[in-house]
């Protein structure tokens, strides 16, 4: 009886601590987010998986911004490192289909979400990002996914 209770207690504590870690640890992580507004109303959000240190996050958004600057001078860029990923962006890091076109690096290290008034233009921008990344290392190359397609 006591033996069974001990085993149950060990499992219960493990499950409880695991659930607590999954619930609370994400709020301590820093998520690199770069939002770029292009002329014509197209908006691209670049985001990466969470990082444990803020300086890592800042260095990461600087790198993304410098890449974007090379292709889009004069675009309006907003970069931030929030603690915890805003709910609206969580789906972007998953493998689920999205309502907008999105591009993702093979290693999951970078995801771009394209938002615009004209679906054809947003899809075209997505495909362009894939082409532009062709010279990157294989795991960093972007693959474009149309809206509604599991990624």
């Amino acid at each position, binding site marked *: 009886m006591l033996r069974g209770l*001990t085993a149950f207690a060990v499992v219960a504590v493990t499950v409880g601590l695991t659930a607590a*870690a999954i619930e609370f640890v994400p709020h301590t992580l820093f998520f690199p987010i770069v939002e770029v507004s292009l002329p014509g109303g197209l908006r691209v959000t670049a985001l990466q998986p969470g990082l444990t240190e803020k300086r890592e996050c800042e260095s990461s958004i600087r790198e993304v911004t410098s890449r974007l600057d090379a292709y889009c001078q004069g675009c309006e860029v907003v970069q931030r490192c929030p603690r915890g990923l805003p709910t609206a962006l969580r789906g972007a890091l*998953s493998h689920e289909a999205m309502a907008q076109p999105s591009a993702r690096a093979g290693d999951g290290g970078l995801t771009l979400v394209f938002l615009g008034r004209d679906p054809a233009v947003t899809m075209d921008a997505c495909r362009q990002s894939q082409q532009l990344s062709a010279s990157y290392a294989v795991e960093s190359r972007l693959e474009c996914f149309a809206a509604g397609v599991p990624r």
Partner: protein
Amino acid sequence: MSAAPALFEQRTMAVDSKLYDVFMRLPIVSFTLFFFAREIIALRGVIAVRLYASNYWQLFFTVAARISVMMFLALLAALHLARLRPIRKYGTWWPRITALLGLLTVYALVMVPTADSIAWWDGVSAMLLLVGNTLGILAVLDLGHSLSIMPEARQLVTTGCYRRVRHPLYLAEDIALVGVFLQFRSWPAVIVLTAHVLVQLRRMDWEEEILFRAFPEYADYRLRSYRLVPGLY
């Protein structure tokens, strides 16, 4: 059971001062607390990498496996602080060296490159780590104040996990190590783990020998229990 009696020292409280005994607990307590702290720091990284990218249950079992490692390490530290003083221990270094090798050999894996992450293997690995560590926690709780890295006799434990198997903690450790191996899946990792198992088998010899010498009832316990795997060995 062929070791000469000269190998043994009958240690009593008069021989080992309390201060000496407390002092000798510090290395293993520091060792486990160091790895406990490392696990806490690493947990954020594990969650950061897998959060949202993997499905919830895959993340859950991966985190649960790491949490069970932390619980095991915390328990090791606590029980080493609270352990009884030995009534019998070896007077030579070989049993201690074997025990230390048994503890440390597996850390040679830090020099072996890990295999590419494959969701299916990662899942099985996490499950084995979780099962092994949970069983390890139960075995350590059964050992209680008799827990020791070195082969030393304190109190004979023949209940709980120890009722049918004489070394359930090593069985638990080996289950978890198969889980660790799945993250490497290479010949160098096979070599490290084989070396580890061989050292652990020798360590079991030393432990059984000292318990046999210290507790007359151990001979009977050995006859009615398996060494490592219930029903097999």
